[in-house]
């Protein structure tokens, strides 16, 4: 849409202003404008040896030069635990929806995470629209960047295409003390109103170069278009027993995955039993009881079957449904798996090497 630039200092003071603003905001889209709320501003910060997305207390905390965050930004749109409804226990007349997110800005979202958000957007808007997720998305501005630091498990270049641009409102590229600012949406443009934006003197080629600066060590070992069919044919591959035998069913791989969104719903009440809420929490298909029914049948009782399901969801089911590979190649699952088995690259390689 538009390509401008801003100095890093100006950018930082601008987001700090947004963060602390108390006057009514001209926000993106109808849902935000008129709110007298400040922008909750989320950015990448350091936590011990790792990076995480967290609310910024100051723009100075931002670390845009990072390898990967522990959890993906999905936690802001599908929180690990959120209240869907409130009620008075045992009084069905009292059910009321809870859904009024304030505006948030996410700064420094890597392109693969944006691709994942695009996929989540599809999942939560298509069919029955999930207002809880969608309102949060509508009330958010996503400011993306291209990875600038190597991460040994990343393989995003072999699986994502341009879809990340469908989620991003703004893309940044850091260059010589400046950010090149690519404004992709009206929302992004509104957000940046009042920022010290200057004419751009960089070429598109510069952006391209920056976007592709970091080369991945890993890649999906076959053309992704062929993956669904490959998986379809290998439902009974020895890989499932092999990996199932090593898997702890700990769900680390799912919790850190930006394209996993399975959830559980349950009721919580106050100790007085006078008020309660229906909450949604993250759940995971890798956990043993995930498919256990009330009458005690477990439809995915085996570790291998659960492991296979996760891989199929990424490489086949989501791919076929949305037209984009269901894994964005962030490598988080590979990096967080204690057993060292969760990465799709590793799994596909094993399958190719061990033709059943």
């Amino acid at each position, binding site marked *: 849409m538009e390509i401008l630039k801003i100095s890093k200092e100006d950018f930082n003071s601008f987001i700090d202003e947004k963060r602390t603003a108390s006057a009514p905001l001209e926000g993106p889209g109808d849902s935000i404008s008129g709110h007298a709320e400040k922008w909750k501003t989320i950015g990448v910060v350091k936590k011990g040896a790792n990076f995480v997305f967290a609310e910024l207390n100051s723009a100075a905390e931002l670390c845009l030069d990072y390898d990967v965050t522990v959890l993906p930004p999905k936690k802001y749109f599908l929180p*690990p635990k959120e209240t869907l409804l409130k009620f008075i226990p045992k009084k069905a007349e009292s059910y009321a929806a809870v859904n009024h997110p304030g505006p948030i800005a996410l700064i420094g979202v890597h392109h693969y995470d944006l691709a994942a958000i695009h996929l989540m957007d599809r999942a939560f808007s298509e069919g029955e629209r999930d207002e809880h997720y969608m309102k949060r998305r509508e009330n958010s501005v996503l400011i993306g960047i291209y990875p600038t630091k190597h991460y040994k498990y990343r393989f995003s270049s072999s699986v994502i295409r341009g879809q990340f641009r469908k989620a991003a409102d703004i893309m940044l590229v850091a260059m010589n003390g400046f950010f090149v600012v690519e404004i992709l949406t009206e929302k992004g443009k509104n957000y940046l109103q009042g920022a010290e934006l200057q004419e751009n003197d960089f070429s598109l080629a510069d952006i391209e170069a920056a976007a592709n600066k970091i080369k991945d060590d890993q890649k999906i070992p076959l053309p992704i278009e062929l993956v669904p069919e490959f998986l379809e044919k290998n439902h009974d591959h020895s890989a499932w027993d092999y990996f199932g035998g090593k898997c*702890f069913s700990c*769900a680390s791989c799912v919790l850190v995955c930006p394209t996993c969104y399975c959830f559980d719903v349950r009721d919580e009440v106050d*100790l007085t039993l006078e008020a309660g809420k229906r909450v949604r929490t993250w759940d995971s298909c890798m956990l043993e009881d995930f498919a256990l029914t009330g009458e005690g049948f477990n439809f995915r009782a085996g570790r291998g079957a659960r492991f296979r399901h996760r891989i199929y969801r990424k490489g086949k089911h989501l791919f076929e449904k949305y037209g984009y590979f269901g894994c964005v190649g962030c490598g988080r699952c590979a990096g967080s798996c*204690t057993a060292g088995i969760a990465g799709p690259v590793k799994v596909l390689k094993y399958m190719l090497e061990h033709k059943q």
Partner: protein
Amino acid sequence: MSSKPKVAFFDFACCEGCQLQVANLEEEILVLAQMVDVVEFREVMTGAAPAYDIAFIEGSITRRADENRLKDIRNRSKLLVAYGQCAVSGGINKLKNRRPGMDEVKKEVYGDSAGMPHLDTYPTKAIDEIVAVDFYIPGCPVNREEFLWVVKELLLGKTPRLPNYPVCVNCKLQENACLFDFSIICLGPLARAGCGAVCPANGVACCACRGTVDNPNKNAMHEILLKYNYTVEEIKKKFDIFAVDPEVQSGKK
């Protein structure tokens, strides 16, 4: 609820740290005291009652006399909840059972007086080795939130079901750095979650104080141990601290 359920708290051999967690509920314990009728709780009140709707049992059993007292409580209770790892598995008190025999144990502590009758003891038993237990609240100590949650579930007539997934889930949600990344052997992948991964979050390996998940993948653990040059015995010894046997499915939920 028509009339408030009569609730009692009892303790056997233990450090009473779990009932302290109940006391640590602060203002909430006053709310709790309005929701239920606390009829017996020796540590904080004077009073006794003939029967209970819910009896919370803390501690493990180490003597015949305590065994009888426990059976008597069971007979007078509709629901019996074992809370704290001492009650659930025998907990730390079972370390005693790892020693060659009770005589040696007694001698170690009481020396020449070890033979005196009032010092008698037998190998530590968990509560469900003696009476039927309806619900378990594991942990050393119990997690206050989980205790309250169980109480609420019972008040609502629900069946409290403990998390059946490993501590790693709690860890990931807190975005802790995994201890294996620092070559620290953590029992988290086998241990039952629900503690909020307090130990890894504080830089210390999980030692499975809440027992294991129903179906821990011990083969996977064996492989990891080999990778880090540990023996199975060394790990089993870690599980011994809280009397958890990853080889035996406890069936405790």
